[in-house]
């Protein structure tokens, strides 16, 4: 903003409140779901990941890059966490 601008400058607190609400809102919009499967093959896991991404892209109007699928294995238990960021 130029020095001669007649517009009233937001107070420091107003800026902080706006940024705080943005931070919190963005985080709350990311929805994570955890499901556990047992004794699944690599191909089955891969097909589940693809299905989650396709489903999110088709039904939630999000880009594929906004769908993150994380896989972790503990013995024969596989945990898939899908995090979908949408607005």
């Amino acid at each position, binding site marked *: 903003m130029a020095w001669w601008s007649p517009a009233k400058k937001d107070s*420091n*607190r*107003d800026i902080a*409140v706006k940024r*705080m609400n943005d931070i*919190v809102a963005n*985080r*709350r919009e990311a929805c994570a779901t955890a499901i556990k499967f047992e004794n699944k093959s690599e191909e089955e896991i891969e097909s589940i990941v693809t299905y989650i991404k396709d489903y999110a892209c088709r039904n939630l109007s999000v880009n594929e890059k906004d769908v993150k699928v994380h896989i972790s294995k503990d013995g024969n238990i596989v945990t898939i966490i899908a995090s979908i960021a949408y607005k």
Partner: protein
Amino acid sequence: MNDSKVFVVTSGKGGVGKTTVTANLGACLALLGYNVCLIDADIGLKNLDLVLGLENRVVYTIIDVVRGNKDPLEAVVKHKFLKNLNLLASSQIANKDMVSEQDMINLVNELSKHYHYIIIDCPAGIERGFKNSIAPAQQAIIVTTPELTAISDADRVIGMLENQGFSEQRVSLIVNRLKPRMVQRDKMVSPEEIKNALAVELLGVVPDSEEIIVSTNEGNPLVLDERNRLSIPFKNIAQRILGNPIPISEDIAGFSEDGFLGFIKKLLGRR
């Protein structure tokens, strides 16, 4: 004591005052006559014994209990002045991987038989130490300062608690190090705004004060000094935990006076 209440004091971000809140809240409840046990779950970076002035009295730690070398009651240390305030200290030479979530649940189950209130001082971060600390807790107290970095981390922790099955009723918020005059001058977010953003119940507000540093230097929780005005917010928080609805405004009453009257009051109130 089957109706023992178990709290975890957590934040995500380090240095926001978790240990100070744990020590003073525990001391307040002990002053009210309850048997209180504080657990320092910050394994490897212990501080709670220092804030309570008990660092020279600690012989056994949480690691001795987890390894089965000592019973929990043998390992706890009594406070010098408040005999119903106890500490299960952490170890500086151990690491967080030496304790599991189940270890913490077993430990708290055992201590629950002897204490009205158990307060766990959670380490900073959201890793193993955090998960261990929240595992046995019934209620979570989130401590944040009015800074965006701390609020952002508090939000992350609230999300993690929700994922672990903590309902809205089991999570509450303490805003620490508030500078009421900065809020009045529109230079700091207010506790109400933080509460609304994080969508959790506000348990209390603790104004910023040099008295905290003085009390830590002396190893005495400041609530032990009745004349210390900073003891008021901690006492109010303890009352709210007991179910007595004290207005939040009373936590910061007298901390925002400007001008000559405020200066005189500050001088008279200072010890």
